[in-house]
């Protein structure tokens, strides 16, 4: 199915650019790690677009970064190739007023799962959005889809099964590798602040240096800032050159919020943001 989808994608992008509907389309091209993002502005380049199981990245974050941000601000309409799971990120950006839905054109790809190396990505396990919803058009049919088994929280459960001391040792070990290159932040579609809290010096919110306490503070706060916003796309971990499973922290928070509050980020564009609201009956058995 993928090759047909790829061909159709190229055709459609070509049309959309040609008839002036779109200024640019962001999709995937082949790259060193399988795929990489590709900005197509010229129909001559549509053949570089690919669709395959290496299209793991969530490209949504580019909407709020140069050069797409400038293009959107200038009133252009932009095309984005999305998987069902990426749609949640798009929804959060719409929910937070960062993206005007009418200014983006979403080309949804019916997805048979993407791979991280040889295995299916963790995020594909038990995927319920293989057929994207809410796109401007969808490419692919769902007749051949095979549901991917497994638990997307497998890694988190492993850490949860440890005792406190083991967990502390585990995270110390992992986070001590962090070099504060901020690839996780820059990759995250939800990290769109112009000035990150890490850059604030009055007060110096987060230790600047990659000391262990500074690293823990950074990743802890990142997880809190993503509470109710993280869509578990795993971009942060994918981007991490030091192989730190930083997404486990944000995904743990997302899972906790789903479990305790029934809130799923990006599920409903009209929902009030999780931390910006409350319910009278929110759990509070931890409070004395």
């Amino acid at each position: 199915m993928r090759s047909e989808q790829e061909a159709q994608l190229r055709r459609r992008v070509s049309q959309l650019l040609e008839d002036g509907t779109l200024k640019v389309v962001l999709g995937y091209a082949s790259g060193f790690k399988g795929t990489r993002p590709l900005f197509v502005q010229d129909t001559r380049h549509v053949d570089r677009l690919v669709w395959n199981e290496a299209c793991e990245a969530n490209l949504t974050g580019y909407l709020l970064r140069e050069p797409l941000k400038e293009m959107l601000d200038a009133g252009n309409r932009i095309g984005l190739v999305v998987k069902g799971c990426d749609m949640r990120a798009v929804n959060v950006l719409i929910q937070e007023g960062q993206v005007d839905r009418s200014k983006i054109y979403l080309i949804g790809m019916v997805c048979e799962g993407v791979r991280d190396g040889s295995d299916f990505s963790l995020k594909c396990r038990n995927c319920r959005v293989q057929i994207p919803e809410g796109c401007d058009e969808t490419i692919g049919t769902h007749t051949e889809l095979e549901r991917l088994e497994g638990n997307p929280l497998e890694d988190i459960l492993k850490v949860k099964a440890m005792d406190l001391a083991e967990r502390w040792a585990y995270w110390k070990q992992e986070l001590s590798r962090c070099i504060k290159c901020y690839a996780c932040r820059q990759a995250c579609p939800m990290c769109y602040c112009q000035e990150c809290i890490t850059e604030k010096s009055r007060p110096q919110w987060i230790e600047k240096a990659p000391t262990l306490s500074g690293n823990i503070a950074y990743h802890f706060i990142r997880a809190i800032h993503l509470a109710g916003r993280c869509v578990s796309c795993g971009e942060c971990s994918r981007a991490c050159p030091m192989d730190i499973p930083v997404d486990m922290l944000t995904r743990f928070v997302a899972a906790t919020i789903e479990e305790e509050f029934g809130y799923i980020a990006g599920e409903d564009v009209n929902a009030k943001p999780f931390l910006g609201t409350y319910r009278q009956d929110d759990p509070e058995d931890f409070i004395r």
Partner: protein
Amino acid sequence: MSDRLRIVGFLCNWCSYAGADLAGTTRLKHRAEVRIVRVPCSGRIDPVFILKAYERGADAVIVGGCHPGDCHYVSGNLNARRRFLVIRKLLEFIGIEPDRFEVTWCSAAEGEKWAKVVNEVCDRVEALGPFEAYKAITPPVRGPVKEVTTGEE
């Protein structure tokens, strides 16, 4: 006495701070390890404050707000409640004892409750011991214990 415990309390001005005041006016003796930072509302408490307190040597943090429905600002405590839950779970997930982060609703009338919470938290943190795990990973920014002599003129 360098291993004396240090607990930081972020208390909302209207309920828990006033509750702690009431503990005072009713002379309810309790343990002296808590240092109180007054904030207008529990909704004002940023998660970073909690980590910063650990970095600066706190062995535990107590956060105090109004009971649901009593918030001077209508709903600050309810907004905060979700955040506190997430913070507590996440602390636990990275291996920090949840007892090092205590949340309490304490009204202006609950001087007794405040005294009790302080004593209990102190007891539990004492059982855990000083937060050496965190102190060990922080740059050396804490000063040596300063000695002050009393009773001299």
